[in-house]
């Protein structure tokens, strides 16, 4: 050791280029395009946005805006109720689709359609179905009962429920697919052993399926919550935030402020969401970057 150490450390570090191997130089060159994109379209916009939202007056204005309070509550309902219902259905359906049947295989091919097609036309399709005068739902209600159906999207509670429904329709297949892969990874002999011991359906789920899927399920739920914060389409294209701006969520509210030319308010509404987003992101990063 003593001999090999002799010269190296006394000499000041040589310039960067000669310290790097050619492979490392290439490494930096190949990483540069992404770094440029990152600096120009993530770092700069985020810093600029934070700078725009710096004035405390923005937050006072937000606090006093009833639409903001409503949007925050709607977002929480969307996340806490909507996502949990979606994930429970996905967990249930993953068990269904894990059954070995030819017709279930075919059904799973169809089931993935909402995920495979773009959301805009299908959301607009639902929107027209709910049209009080011309939509197929109220036509059916009329032909069965002789009464006019409700004006679906004119009631904020119903409208938000429908937006959550549209969101579930769109993203349920994806999460079901992920949970199916989790289920199929459970060794099959565990179930066979349980069968021999006469375990009930619930006992098999409680003591075999759930313990091995717990982590995956929680990860999926958190990830879905983060992404749903950015679900602009389900609300904007179905209700447009209406009636009377009562069904906004944070993602559509930011765009609403932007369209009203209140950019600093738009940024402030996003900054306010950060205490909710950042812990979730931190948690996900810890899980995924190993």
């Amino acid at each position, binding site marked *: 050791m003593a001999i090999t150490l002799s010269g190296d450390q006394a000499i000041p570090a040589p310039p960067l280029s000669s310290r790097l191997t050619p*492979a490392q130089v*290439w*490494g*930096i060159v*190949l*990483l540069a395009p*992404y770094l440029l*994109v990152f600096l*120009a*379209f*993530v770092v*700069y*916009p*985020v810093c*600029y*946005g934070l700078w*725009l939202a710096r004035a405390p007056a923005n937050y006072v204005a937000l606090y006093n805006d009833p639409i903001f309070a409503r949007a925050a509550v709607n977002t929480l309902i969307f996340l806490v109720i909507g996502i949990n219902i979606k994930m429970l259905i996905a967990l249930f*359906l993953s068990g*269904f689709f894990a059954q070995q049947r030819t017709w*279930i295989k075919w*059904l799973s*091919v169809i*089931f993935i*359609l*909402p995920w495979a*097609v*773009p*959301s*805009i*036309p*299908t959301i*607009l*399709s*639902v929107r*027209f*179905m709910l049209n009080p005068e*011309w*939509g*197929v739902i109220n*036509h*059916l209600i009329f*032909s069965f009962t002789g009464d006019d159906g409700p004006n679906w999207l004119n009631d904020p509670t119903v409208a938000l429920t429908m937006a959550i429904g549209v969101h579930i*329709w769109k993203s349920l297949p994806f999460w079901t697919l*992920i949970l199916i892969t989790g289920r199929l990874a459970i060794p099959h002999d565990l179930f066979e052993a349980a069968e021999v011991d006469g375990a009930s359906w619930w006992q098999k789920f409680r003591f075999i399926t759930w313990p091995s899927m717990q*982590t*995956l399920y929680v*990860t*999926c739920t958190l*990830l879905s919550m*983060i*992404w749903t914060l*950015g679900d602009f389409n389900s609300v904007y294209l179905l209700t447009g935030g209406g009636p009377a701006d009562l069904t906004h969520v944070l993602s*559509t509210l930011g*765009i609403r402020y*932007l369209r009203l030319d209140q950019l600093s308010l738009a940024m402030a509404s996003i900054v306010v969401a950060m205490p909710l*987003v950042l812990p979730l*992101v931190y948690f996900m*990063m810890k899980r*995924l*970057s190993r």
Partner: protein
Amino acid sequence: MKLPTLREVGNEAKLLLIGIPVFIWTMIPIYHMFLFAISPKEDAFSGKLWPDHPTLHNFHIVFYQEHYFLRDFWIQFWNSTVIALAAGGLTLFIATAAAFSISRLKVPGGRWVMNLALFTYFIPAAFLAVPMYRTMGNYGLLNNHWSLILAMVTIASPYAIWVLKQASDKLPVELDEAAVMDGATTLQLFRLVYLPLMMPSLVAIGTYAVLLAWNEYLYAFLLLSKDTNITLPVALGNFLAADDSPWELLMTTGFIYALPPAAVYYAFKRYMVGGLTAGAVKS
């Protein structure tokens, strides 16, 4: 031929009791869209479950741009295609280079860049849209296709890099060492060893980025606004501007717009399921 036991029949019935509602739930909005596409206006608006006179006339109107809302249909279709392909190609280039650099060349600080990318991946895209819109204005790119292409690359790259890095970490180091031993330069290593081995993941990521850009609504509608440079989803949204929108034409256009991504998805399904779901959530 053995007759099924009562228990088997009961089991099958229980499965059907789940399967049928799932089928109906999945198909309703899609069937409704298809129904409108093949219905004349009177049939569509009368709430029928099958039109009295099914017709392809709506498709004729769309293809020949015979309506005020559709006068730029083909150019919008072209815009969507160009933007999706450009975003896909650029994402693929940037992400592959970055993943190779981080995973195979072990560039200093690579792990740090990976974490930054992952962080971006988790920030909801709708939140980044507001500052991104303003930034594109500052760069003078509003109403320019590059703004949407670059925005899509920004959003698609983090996940692309992450999936490609996971995939390339699995390739044995000995391959690289053997190639270097034989005198391969870094670029030859990249081109002749790395790219061929990564092909399945590259197909998956390319498809992912193309579909992401094709399907994007929010950024497209913020960044592009002229009738001749918007993409199809923005044009669909613009139908809503009128009170008496021709919904049967809107649904026809939507149906046409939805076909290519669905076809691409099913064509590349085996890559998508293997390459993306494995990467999407690690248990």
